[in-house]
Each structure stands twice: as C-alpha cells, then as structure tokens.
C-alpha cells in the first residue's frame, strides 16, 4: 500500500516533536528514517500506529484519509509495528503468541492448535523468518523474539511494517537474518519503515532515506549515492567525526583484578566459568562476544549486582568480592547498565533526579538526610549541556525522553563523578552518530585521566575503535585479552569459538 503523511505536527509540553512532517512511503519500499536522538522518529511512527494523535495533519492510505483512534484501527488498516520491547506473553508458545487475539478455532470455540501451528509454519517459510512454533517465547533469544513479533504483525495481515530500531539489540548475524527477511517482505509488495542509527545499515537495506532534524524533514537521500559521512552531516547539521582519536598511553597499576570467578545462572549452571581479568589504569579493555555467552553476568558480578559463586574480585588491591552494590559504586566504580529502561532510569523521576540517581544521598546532593535541590539542579544543567541531552527542561520526566536521550542520561551521570573503574555495557546503544562521537571521546578522556575502563559491546566497530586490549567471551569463558591491533576477522572467529591460535594464525 502507499502511505502518505501530510503536515503532521505533534507537540509535547516544551517541544514540538513533529513539525509539519510530509512523508510518502511507496508500496514495496523500504524507507529509512534517520535523525538525531529526539528528532521525532518514534513519535511520528507512534502517530502512524495510532498510539498518539497528531495535533495537525492527516494520514492517507492509498489516497484515502484515515484516522486511528488506537493501534487496533491501525492494525485493521494493515499497519504493524515492532517495538523494541516486545509485547509477547512469555509463557506462551510462539504459535500461541502469534495467533493471540485472532485465534484459530474449530466449532464450539475450541482452539485449533494444529491449524495455528501450520499457519505459523507457512508464514515463517514464506518470509524466511525461521521459528519453532512450539517453542516457549521466554526461552528464545531476543533476535528470535523479534521474528515472532514480525510474524505476529504479518499474521494480522500487515502491509506496512514499522521497525523502530530493530537492530539495536541484535548481533551482526541476527541483523543479517533480519535484512534477508526484510527483502523478502519487500518482494511480496509490503512496505517497511526502518529506523536505525547505524548508517551502514541504511546503506545496506534501505531504498530511500528521509532525514529528520528537530521535528522537521530536512531532506531525503538515495543511500546508493550518499556516503555515510554525508548522511551524518545531513542528520546532525554539522560535520561529524566518525572515528575516535586515541593517543597511546602508558598503563598504570591494576585497578581491577578478577581471579577465577564463577557466576551461576538461574538454573544453577555456570554462566561465567572461572574468568581471570586484569584491567589497569589508563587502558580500555573491550569484551566482545555473541549475546548470551556470559558477558552480562560477568559485568553484573564485577559491579556488585549479582553475587559470585567462586573466585575473588579485587579493586586497587582490596578484596571487594563481598561488597554490596552501593559500597562498590561509592568505592569508585561506575557502571552503565545494559538495559537502560530496566536498570538505568526511573521513568517517573525527572531528568535531574535521574542524573544523580546513584549519588542520591551523598554530598553535595544531600546533607544529613536532606536533599539539596540547588546542587542537583546545577549538576543536572551542566550534564544536559555537556551531553546535549534534548529535553524541554531538567524537570521533565525521564520517561518522556527519546530513547537515545534517556541513554545519554545514564551515560552522563557516570562521568560526573571521579571513578577508578568504569564498566560500560553497550554504552552507545540507541544513540545517534553525533552523540556516539561525544560519548566515545568522553570514555577515552576517562582512560586518559587514569581510570580503568571495561567496555562490553556487541558493536564490533565500537570494540575495535575504543579497545587497547580486546577479549572475547565464549561459553562463559574469557579468551584474551589481546593487545590491539587485532583484526576484525580474528575477533569474529574468536566469537564463533575458535582458539586464539586458529583465530590469530588465520588472519595475521
């Protein structure tokens, strides 16, 4: 179907999220949306999906104006949306989730499981989205859950699919699989709106790119003829550096010394299996790996969120294995958690409150149990400026920020205090290129100031750009770290389970 947005305007208190946006999405087109954090991409898509109502403007499907009172109407009109946080019932099977709400029944209203599963099977074959209809959703990796979401939309006969940053949580391999499916959807005549901050991805999959800046469409681009640099400049409105400048630096004493730690998962199996790791002052150690190989658990143990089942953790020569989270944070450990919405921000609190969250009861933000609003506001204003957090004010609730701006809040507050060790998990997930540049620079600054930095990232570009040494997690064990330079291919091989000799030998 052909979809047209005309003059869409949406205001929130203090911001115009969409400002007279015109957009046409042709039948069988993959349309890329590019724009800085807070540019209004998600808002526009939420309007299209009936979640928000536009203040002005109209939506036309195949030339006919339509109005949506809610997502139900949008779905009926053939629009499907996959949010990053999936709306699946964890204990239901794939087939049950996909057919939920439009169940297959035989006489007397009995569920027809067999026909539901056959239908799911058919859809998954047709579009190259392999899933096991019998699998229970909570046991599946994110990438597969995302497929289930897409199939759910297809089962409801979506002819236009909105994918809001679908690749932010995918591994490179999963991204490839998604792209293949997107191509076959396109061949079937369906249209797709694809949002991503990764310019490479736009160039790889998209037919036409619309660029949003501060709520307005500032241009469209043909991905085939526009370079990444040009796209970045168009989006930010100024030249952006896409690489990190990093001078060599002498490393100092060991800040973090991990000795043989083991962490058990919920089922009692070791998720982290006897890991040793030293990180020194003035160096960045990047940990790569396919999601689910124990990186998450390792970071949680090092930062005091989960207990270890064995081994010791030392911070500047002090045994901190038994430290609680608060003790560790106050001892000079900074942590950027992987799941920002769950562990990073309190959505109902203001931006200012979130910017001091881990220091809520410490000077200068509190004094003998009394919160000091002046000091909080002062630091918050500064952080908002430094990190270019796009918010109407520091008193806006953090939950109303755009995804990338919320991430910047989480990142900013860790840089506001003196740290000996910074552990950053997916620090730039969902962040636009301009801000990635800035966050990377700040991470390098931290290292130059003499902090020890651990980065966990599924973004190979990020790993290779920042690391002084790189390690790979595979099946709960840590391989490395190896001093840079290590080639992209070698890291890839290590992630797939090759031994260091194989990996290095094959590529050096």
């Amino acid at each position, binding site marked *: 179907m052909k979809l047209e947005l005309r003059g869409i305007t949406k205001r*929130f*208190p203090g911001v115009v999220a969409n400002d007279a946006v015109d957009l046409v999405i042709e039948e069988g087109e993959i349309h890329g949306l590019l724009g800085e954090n807070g540019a209004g*991409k*998600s808002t526009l898509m*939420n309007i299209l999906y009936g*979640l*928000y109502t536009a203040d002005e403007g109209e939506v036309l499907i195949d030339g006919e104006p339509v109005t949506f009172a*809610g*997502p139900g109407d949008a779905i009926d009109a053939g629009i499907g949306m996959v*949010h*990053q*946080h*999936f*709306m699946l019932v964890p204990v239901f099977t794939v087939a049950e989730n996909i057919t939920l709400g439009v169940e297959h029944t035989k006489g007397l209203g009995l569920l027809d499981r067999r026909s539901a599963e056959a239908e799911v099977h058919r859809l998954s074959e047709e579009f190259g989205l392999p899933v096991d209809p019998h699998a229970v959703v909570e046991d599946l990796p994110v990438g597969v859950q995302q497929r289930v979401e897409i199939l759910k939309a297809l089962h409801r006969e979506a002819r236009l699919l909105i994918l*809001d*940053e679908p690749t*932010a*949580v995918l591994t490179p391999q999963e991204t490839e699989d998604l792209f293949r499916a997107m191509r076959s959807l396109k061949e079937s005549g369906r249209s797709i709106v694809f*949002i991503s901050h990764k310019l490479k991805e736009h160039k790889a999959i998209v037919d036409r790119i619309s660029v949003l800046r501060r709520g307005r469409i500032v241009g469209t681009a043909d991905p085939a003829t526009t370079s990444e640099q040009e796209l970045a400049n168009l989006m930010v409105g100024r030249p952006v550096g896409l690489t990190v400048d990093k001078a060599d630096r002498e490393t100092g004493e060991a800040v973090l010394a991990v000795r043989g730690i083991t962490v058990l998962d919920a089922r009692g199996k070791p998720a982290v299996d006897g890991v040793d790791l030293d990180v020194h002052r003035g160096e960045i150690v990047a940990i790569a790996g396919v999601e689910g190989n124990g990186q998450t658990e390792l970071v949680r143990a090092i930062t005091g*969120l989960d207990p270890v089942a064995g081994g010791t953790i030392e911070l500047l020569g002090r045994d901190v294995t038994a430290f*609680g*989270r*608060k003790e*560790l*944070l*106050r001892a000079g450990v900074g*942590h950027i*958690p992987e799941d*920002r*919405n*769950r*562990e*990073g*921000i*309190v*959505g*109902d*609190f203001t931006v200012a*409150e979130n910017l001091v*969250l*881990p220091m*809520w*009861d410490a000077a200068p933000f*509190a004094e003998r*149990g*009394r*919160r000091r609003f002046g000091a909080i506001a002062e630091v918050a204003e500064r952080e908002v400026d430094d990190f270019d957090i796009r918010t109407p004010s520091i*008193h*806006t*609730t953090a*939950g*109303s920020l*755009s*995804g990338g701006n*919320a991430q910047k809040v989480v990142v900013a507050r860790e840089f506001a205090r003196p740290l000996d060790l910074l552990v950053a998990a997916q620090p730039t*997930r*969902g962040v636009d290129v301009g801000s990635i540049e800035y966050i990377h620079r700040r991470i390098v600054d931290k290292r130059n100031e003499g902090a020890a930095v651990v980065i966990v990232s599924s973004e190979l570009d990020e790993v290779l750009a920042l690391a002084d040494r790189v390690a790979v997690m595979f099946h709960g064990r840590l391989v490395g770290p190896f001093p840079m330079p290590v080639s992209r291919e070698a890291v890839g091989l290590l992630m797939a389970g090759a031994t260091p000799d194989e990996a290095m030998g094959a590529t050096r």
Partner: protein
Amino acid sequence: MTTPEGPDERQVPPPSPDAASADEPEVRGAEERDREHAAPVHAAAGPMERFVAAVTGTSVVVTILAFVSAMVVGALFIALSEEAVRESMGYFLARPGDALSAAWSVSAEAYGALFRGAVGGAYQLSETGTAAIPLILTGLAVAIPLRAGMFNIGGEGQVIAGGVVAGFVGFAVTGLPFLVHLPLAILAGILGGAAYGFLPGILKARTGAHEVITTIMLNNIAIYVTDYLLSTDRFRLEGRSDPISKTVEASAVLPRIFAGLRLHWGLLLVVVVAVAIWWLLERSTFGFELTAVGKNPDAARAAGMSTGRMIVLGLTLAGALAGLAGGAQILGLQQRITGGFSGGLGFDGITVALLGRGSVGGTVAAGVLFGALKAGGRSMQGATGTSLDLVVVLQALIILFVAAPALVRAIFRIRAQGPATGELAKGWGA
C-alpha cells in the same frame, strides 16, 4: 461522656469536592504529561504496579469527578430508599416529574443535613475533627507504603496493636506525672504499631511473602489476641464480663482542646506528623529512596539503593502512624480498650489514601473529608432518617470510581492523552 466509637460508625459526604485536591504544585504541572506515559511504567509491571500507578497517576480532576460521581450515585440510593419516591415511580411514565422532584428533594435534604452535621457549628466541626484525626493517620499508613509500591491492608491490625499497647501503658503504669505518662503512652502506641508493621515488612524483605496476604492475616491475629487479652484479669475491668479494659489513668489522657467538645490534642499530633511525613517523602533522601524503589526497583537497586531496607522501613513507619491512630483513639477518646475499638479505621485509611492519590496533602484533605462524612452522617441519620449505611455505600462508590479512572473519563468524556492501551512499551527506539 466518652461514647466509645463503635464499629458501626462509618461516614457520609459533604458537597465540597475542592477539599480533595490540596496537592504539591510541582506534581500538578507534570500531571498531564504523565498521562502520556502512564502505560510504559516498565514492561514487566505486574497488576500491583499497574494498580498503584493508576491510583497515584490519576489527575486531580479525575479524582474530584470520581467523588462527584459517587455523590450522584449515592443520591440515587437515597432516593430509591425513600417510600414516597418509590411510590411515585409507580406512575413514573404518566408523570415523570413527580418522581424526579421527589427524588431530588429527598436527596438534597439528606445531603443538606449531612453538610450541616459536618460543618454547621462548633460542635459539628469538633466532631468532624475528632473523626478526621485517626483517618488521616491511617490514610498516611497506606500512602507511605504505596510510595514503595506496597499495599498495606494491615492498618486495622496496626491500629489495634498501637491502641492496646498505649492503653495498657495508660492504665497499668501508675504514679507518673502527666508530662511523662502521656508521652510514654503515646510512644508505646507508636512502637506497638511500628512493631506490627515491621513484621510484614521483614517477612516480605526476607522471604518475599506478599504484604497483602500477611497484613490481612495479621489483622485477624490482632483482633483475636485483643479479645483474649480483654478476657484476662490483667486487662479486664473489674466487675465486667464484656470485653472492656481498665480505665486509662488521668495522667495519660490526651486532653480536650475545648471544654465540652470531644476534639482532643491528638489534632496537634496529626498536624505535626503530616508535616513531618511530607518533609520525609518530598524532601529527604529516605523519601527519594522509598519512591525510587516503588517506581522501579531494578533501577533503584542498580543505583545502590536497598529495596529490602525500604520495604521494612516503609511498612514499619506505616505501622507507627496507624499505631499512633490507635493510641489517640484510646487515650484521647475512649480511655478504655474495647473489643473492636478500631472500628474499621485501618480499612477506612485505604479509601482515604486512594482518594488522596497517595500524596500527603491529598491524604490529609481526604481524611478531613471523610471525617466530615462520618460526623455529618450521624446527624443526617438523626435529622432525615437516611441510614448511616449510606456513608459506607458512598465510601465504596468512591473507591470504585477512583480505582477505575478510565470509567470516570468515559463518563465525563475526558480524553486520555496518548496511549491508554498499555501497548506502548519503551524500547531502544522510544
């Protein structure tokens, strides 16, 4: 002179909805915006979290309209319970005007009597104040745990625990001067309630036992233990076989403020407590931590906050306030512990806190309102014969409307801003 407040005394409504909205201004500004984000509390929010968010997240307007709706439905009940109105219903189709005007005059008369009974003079005001004292305290005892995402159903048990301990210190300790004995008895009440709130707190923090279940159970334990105590010689008033305790020493009685009126100095305690709790919740690091734990326990933990500590402290503090309410009832009003002296105060506190939307200002205002209903209802029954049970009905209606903001919005055609479907979850793209 000291009519013990029996368990049958409940409340009724005066037409002054404005009272229900004394709230911190900063919150009000954020209100409409919050609606847009009511849904994405966080993806894993359970029914409890969503209930708490629904109650504390509704706007002042919706709350007031909920109250108005309850009044209107209440008027219907008044009218239908009236013989004359029912008769005119018989020929409703022939002459609908009769039925309507009869209904109108009956309910207007009842509400008028209610209003006069609540604020019509010094005596009435004193009665309203007297009734409001414990209601505000038990309301806060629900509002505080609500901050931390917990639902304290145990106000009743905590009131009883506080009242019994305060009363015991009041009659069993003798020979102390007033300035020592009264504070001691009050403190005993607070500690009794606090201990009774600590219990479900520690159970939840240590074992995960849900506070709704444990506090309900503890209510029953408190009731029956009190019955038992009142049957022992240590407590029972000599020469009486019914459950009534010895009389509190004069040195432990909370004195009246004005001669001849029942209003006692517990009022001052309530004012001090309310201000202190407001400061604690809105200005202190403790309140911030408590609220963070309630809003997003995972993020709170990741920020180094202690969820377990907040659970225990939140419920203990709640218990302390409910205990104070019990102590004030015994020391200020009854001077004797009786079986069932709490009379549902703990449960009324739930209504008060919900109507007050969990904020301190709102809870105080709702407590005063419900005190007025209670006092006014009694005189309405005397004046117009409308049953005092109407107050209970109104209370139930208010809960119903407050707990279902979507219903109120539908009735008054207020558009909920943004997604009300709960389908919008915040993702990376959000």
